[in-house]
């Protein structure tokens, strides 16, 4: 059931459900026809354009939120690794998620300790073919060159796998396609700057997650259709506190925080996670060498995560978002043992408070069902405090 913010039907979101339901079957069919499926670790550093230009199908592996895969992963990794990364091992071993079974190759951009260790485990336990490339932690020309070297190696790898050359023309076509998707995501997101809410945070996040799984052209049609519907609808003003939801990873299936916020009467109007805004905030340039343009956009202009040095750019960006989206409070949702975020969460609330006067609620999860009670209490209290202030 979608959390509608207006009176009337929203047909596009119903069609999204159908596409999501049918996608596994579609991928199986395409695989049988000889198409290669490339699973990748989400986080904004794998250019889908390279995969598309090789006529392969990109699939972002971003399922999470359930406790069972975390428990299963305990046979392969110690507990002291980021919950989402442990989940990925569990999901692969359990074999119940089509996305994890169907991929011919898993691409892991090595970002922080957790992703590196996920890659180690994937490779050592032979969970499937993996390709790793490094993402440096500083925005320098030297680092950009290293990243470019990595994505060029990725291109070579996928070309070998598919037998299809990612020519400049094909890369530019893919960039054009992905830019269109980004443009639409921005458009819908920016509509949420208005006090009159046209789409719930839960639905927007579903769209983001769907974009990692569905065919690119289908996704663009869905977004275009949604924009038309939203523009034609009469919306009613949102009344609850406006929340910026941020943190390390918000997985497909990890809906507890957003559900609790909405149940408590809050509205998530903007979100910043590894697999969200980072992907759509900036377009890839279409003039010049496409690989250079991809490196420039995916690395140099990308909003930095907490493991970047310095990572202040991310915090400044969050403060900017808080202003632009008329935020009333920030929920910092962190997964256990994602250290950069854990440490940064000790500094961020004060920086935000000093800059904007806004409150922050920090919540840490290990995808455990027992968390729900305490989380509910904390979120309800947070929303109530904002309402009362």
């Amino acid at each position, binding site marked *: 059931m979608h959390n509608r913010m207006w009176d009337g039907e929203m047909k596009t979101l119903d069609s999204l459900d159908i596409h999501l339901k049918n996608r596994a079957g579609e991928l199986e069919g395409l695989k049988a026809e000889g198409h290669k499926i490339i699973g990748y670790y989400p986080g904004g550093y794998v250019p889908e354009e390279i995969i598309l230009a090789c006529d392969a199908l990109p699939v972002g592996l971003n399922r999470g939120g359930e406790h069972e895969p975390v428990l299963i992963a305990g046979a*392969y*990794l*110690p507990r*002291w*690794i980021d919950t989402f990364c442990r989940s990925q091992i569990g999901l692969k071993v359990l074999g119940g998620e089509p996305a994890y079974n169907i991929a011919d190759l898993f691409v892991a951009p*090595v970002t*922080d*300790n*957790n992703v*590196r*260790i996920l890659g*180690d*485990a994937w*490779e*050592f336990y032979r969970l499937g073919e993996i390709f*790793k*490339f*490094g*993402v*440096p*932690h*500083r925005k*320098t020309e*030297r*680092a950009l060159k*290293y990243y470019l*070297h*990595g994505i060029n190696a990725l291109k070579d790898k996928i070309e070998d796998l598919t037998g299809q050359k990612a020519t400049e023309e094909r890369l530019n076509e893919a960039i054009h396609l992905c830019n269109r998707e980004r443009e639409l995501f921005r458009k819908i997101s920016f509509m949420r700057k208005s006090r009159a809410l046209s789409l719930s945070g839960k639905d927007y996040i579903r769209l983001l997650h769907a974009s990692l799984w569905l065919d690119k052209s289908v996704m663009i049609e869905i977004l275009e259709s949604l924009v038309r519907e939203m523009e034609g609808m009469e919306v009613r003003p949102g009344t609850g506190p406006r929340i910026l939801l941020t943190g390390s990873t918000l997985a497909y299936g990890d809906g507890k925080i957003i559900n609790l916020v909405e149940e408590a009467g809050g509205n998530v109007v903007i979100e910043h996670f590894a697999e969200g805004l980072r992907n759509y905030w900036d377009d890839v340039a279409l003039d010049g060498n496409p690989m250079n343009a991809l490196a420039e956009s995916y690395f140099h202009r990308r909003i930095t995560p*907490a*493991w*970047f*040095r*310095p*990572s*202040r750019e991310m915090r400044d960006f969050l403060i900017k978002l808080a202003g632009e989206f008329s935020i009333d409070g920030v929920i910092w949702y962190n997964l*256990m*043992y994602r*250290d*950069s975020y*854990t*440490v*940064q969460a*000790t*500094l961020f609330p004060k920086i935000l408070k000093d800059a904007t006067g806004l409150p922050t609620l920090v919540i*840490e999860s290990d995808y455990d069902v027992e968390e729900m009670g305490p989380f509910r209490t904390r979120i309800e209290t947070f929303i109530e405090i904002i309402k009362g202030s």
Partner: protein
Amino acid sequence: MYYADLLKLCGWERDQIKREASRLDEAFGILGLGPEEMKTADGRVRDGYDIDLMGVRKALGVWIGGLVDVVLSKKEGKKIVYYSFPPLGGLGGRISAIGKGEILCVCPEFILDIALGAIFDRIDPIMETGEDKALPHGAALCAMNKIRVGAIEKGIIPVPDLLLASSFYCDQGGQTDEWLREVYGIPWVVLDNVMDSAWDEFPTLNPERLSYMAAEIENAWTEAAEILGQKPDEEDWGEYAELYSRFVAGIAETNSAMRADPPPVSQSNLQLVRFLRNATSYDRFPDALEAIERLVPELEERVKSGKGPLPKGSPRVTSFLIPQRDHAVAHLIEQAGIAIPVTFLSYDAYTGMLDPTYATVAEKSARTELSRGLYHSTAAILYWTRKAVEDFDLDGVLWSQPIHCRPMASSGFILKKAIEEEFGIPVLILEVDWYDNRVISGETMRTKIETFGHLLAAKKARGETRHRS
């Protein structure tokens, strides 16, 4: 001088104590170390270390001296540079070399952990302050980072003029440096790299990664020199490098001695000496060198006479390192009859990989760091552990798996499966906190370690030997 007996026990000469008396008074005053604390330290030194060895006693003395140096550095007008643990790229040594004693360039948490933690047992309040301010308790975060923040916050060590940060090996370390930078406005220099190797790459070193790291080391070095107002001078570095090479040669000799059966000393003592190279100031480095150069003949003498803390024929294992704060862990291992002739951090076989011809100091540093394996990959850690199993004729592996260290998190599980399958020898993963015994104390490991000792002894008695599949 209420501290004179302790310092003598720790290898200080009477003259040195007299010469440094006013500094010692002041530093111990700041640290709150009075007669009671000296008594505690005396007991801990006698209980935790092999004080029959003057090399070990001297090393303890260097750690205490290093503590005094860092505490007083600001008052003594030094420029202060802190690098985080683990140290990278030989930068600490190079900065010490250009500063020639005017710059104090150390890893303060390492000095505090050993001097104030392992010797005086007075580190917990510092960690707690670090937890209150930046690194929350209960999130399996590293005590070293907590100590760095806590000691600065409590005013025990001065706010530095420069931070040397690593952005790639340890997320926590870099984030902690960034925290300090933001809260105190300290300039920093960041050294970056990536650990993106394929599983089967090592011991080959990927040239792009090597070049990237070398360029980062060179850049960090140039930036640091500029911030400190110093001119990079390869001649100064050459002098220091010569002393450093003597120290490294000493480590190699202690490793040779440890091949003996029985090994002549408990590994935790060697660790104390070996780590001096990572955390000692320029002024104290000659003392560190003296410690290891006194230790080597002492160990050789023991080898000749067949002496060691355990009987000949005791089962032999390797580990990553021995928790240094909590002496109980080393004691338990020895009481269980298990000898540790080598650890991952002591095993320096990588030096054989190093090409003696290199273009720059930075390239050499990058090559060394990557070849050691720790900053390369988990696969490289496994590679050197396999080598150690063969080179040191080991019967098992007792892997200290840190709960607080994300970079090392996967090593234990992977190593257990790989080593047991390849060699048919048992691997025990011991979940530990290397630096914080509030979380897991040595005594909680007694059952595991004792059982493992029985297992190793039984296998050895049955003549079940290592094989290579």
